[in-house]
């Protein structure tokens, strides 16, 4: 590696916009700038771009384009899925009838904190535990289902460990249960970290009712999210003030970002499977390298490579604290993170790693390395070299 080279290993936090995606977005800033709801040709031009993107998303998810809603972020999509469903359900519930949600202890904060918030409104929430591998157990889920259960929200791939959750199996289980249940249990999954890698056929494969996607994790722009809402799912608007997005999400469409997200998803669809294999190889090299080079290091998350998304590896190092590790790596030109980007400024140990049974010190000593389509073998080699030096230095300072 050249002196002063910068190596980005935080693709799970965000990805750069692919140049082709950027090109697809470019006309919608100052050339085709119409408001998509305007009826003149400027407006139609913008609306056409949104329609096209909606088709691209629908094709990616194997659903109808009328089931797609564009939002301002995946966090908004998660909020909308849960709060919007509850709002609609409440309207058809009898007085005193309970609402019950099942989610997991390892969800993204967009789901977790939404649930904490809803608890204040007397919604009953069950937070499923995970095993040491960071994966929920289907029997645990089964055991928690009660007649009042309205919603199950489980993420597709955990953003800190890369652990793949059994979404397809949950979908099938709920389908079975729903056959004999008085009212339906709806199923939401946040698939932000899965979109680049795993099957996202929402109807045939996964059997979900609500499905969250993000633009900036797939080489698309920030500030754009998707919520798939299966036809017939009760949902109420959380943002009112216009009839955009089927009247479910008011606000002038972010045309350029929507066009970029649609294009980015299309790129994934046509992407070579070699790319996935190549990333898995790099990840395996990274994991092997870290565990052999750095003494007293451990890999957090599922042991079986098949149970992990190809791009994320999470480690703990004895005698080192995560934040100082990230800052030291940054000083050497390497971008990685502790846990998730959203919690890296918080003082508490990662809720995901704690749920997996790690000690507080182990959780505080964690580092998440995430790979992307621009990651090279040389970058991993360089990272391994630097990591060893940095860990040794911090261990000398900690004396632990």
């Amino acid at each position: 590696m050249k002196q002063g080279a910068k190596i980005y290993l935080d693709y799970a936090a965000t990805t750069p916009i692919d140049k082709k995606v950027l090109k697809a977005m470019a006309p919608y800033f100052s050339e085709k700038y119409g408001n998509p709801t305007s009826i003149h040709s400027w407006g139609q031009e913008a609306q056409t771009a949104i329609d096209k993107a909606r088709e691209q998303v629908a094709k990616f998810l194997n659903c109808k384009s009328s089931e797609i809603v564009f939002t301002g972020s995946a966090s908004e999509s998660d909020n909308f899925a849960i709060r919007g469903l509850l709002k609609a359900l409440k309207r058809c519930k009898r007085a005193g009838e309970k609402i019950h949600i099942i989610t997991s202890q390892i969800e993204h904060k967009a789901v977790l904190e939404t649930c904490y918030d809803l608890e204040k409104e007397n919604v009953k929430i069950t937070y499923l535990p995970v095993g040491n591998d960071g994966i929920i157990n289907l029997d645990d889920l089964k055991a928690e289902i009660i007649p009042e259960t309205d919603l199950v929200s489980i993420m597709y791939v955990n953003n800190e460990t890369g652990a793949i959750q059994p979404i397809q199996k949950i979908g099938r289980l709920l389908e079975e249960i729903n056959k004999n249940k008085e009212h339906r249990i709806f199923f939401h999954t946040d698939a932000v970290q899965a979109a680049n890698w795993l099957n996202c056929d929402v109807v045939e494969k996964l059997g979900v009712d609500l499905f969250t996607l993000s633009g900036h994790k797939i080489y698309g722009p920030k500030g754009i999210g998707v919520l798939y809402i299966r036809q017939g799912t009760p949902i109420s608007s959380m943002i009112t003030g216009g009839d955009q997005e089927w009247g479910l999400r008011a606000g002038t469409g972010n045309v350029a970002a929507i066009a970029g997200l649609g294009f980015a998803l299309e790129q994934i669809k046509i992407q070579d499977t070699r790319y996935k294999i190549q990333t898995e190889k790099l990840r395996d090299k990274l994991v092997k390298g870290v565990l052999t080079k750095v003494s007293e290091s451990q890999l957090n998350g599922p042991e079986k490579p098949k149970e992990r998304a190809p791009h994320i590896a999470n480690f703990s190092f004895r005698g080192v604290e995560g934040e100082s590790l990230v800052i030291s790596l940054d000083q050497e030109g390497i971008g990685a993170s502790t846990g998730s980007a959203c919690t890296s400024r918080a003082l508490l140990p990662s809720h995901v790693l704690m749920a997996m049974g790690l000690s507080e010190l182990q959780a505080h000593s964690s580092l998440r390395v995430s790979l992307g389509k621009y990651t090279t073998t040389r970058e991993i080699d360089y990272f391994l070299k630097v990591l060893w030096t940095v860990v040794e230095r911090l261990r000398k300072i900690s004396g632990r």
Partner: protein
Amino acid sequence: MYNKKIIQHFTNPKFFGKIKNPDAVGNAGNPRCGDLLTLYLKVDNPPANKTKKITDIRFQTLGCASAIAASDMICELAKGKTLDKALKISFKDVSKSLGVLPPLKIHCAQLVTEALRDAIGKYKKLSG
């Protein structure tokens, strides 16, 4: 997130390490917040009419960048001071000397003063 001064003390701390046969050892921190620190003191043995001074001080800190920087800073501030003056070093002094810690990290300054007070307290108890 951090200013140059904090980064400098984090990157090149002068006082990290252990003292062999220290006169006192102070601890602070807990695993929950992720910071654990130990301070080692060497205290001189002046004639009876003179006050005791900290002649050497070292730290070992498992923690974030600001915890390491604050540990280094409290050593810098305490070295050469009499025990009573060292006891008066406040977390604000530590924070100020580092060009002010970010609000989320102010507890790091509290932690290092705690460790110093713990060490001095133990020393005073031992030496009667």
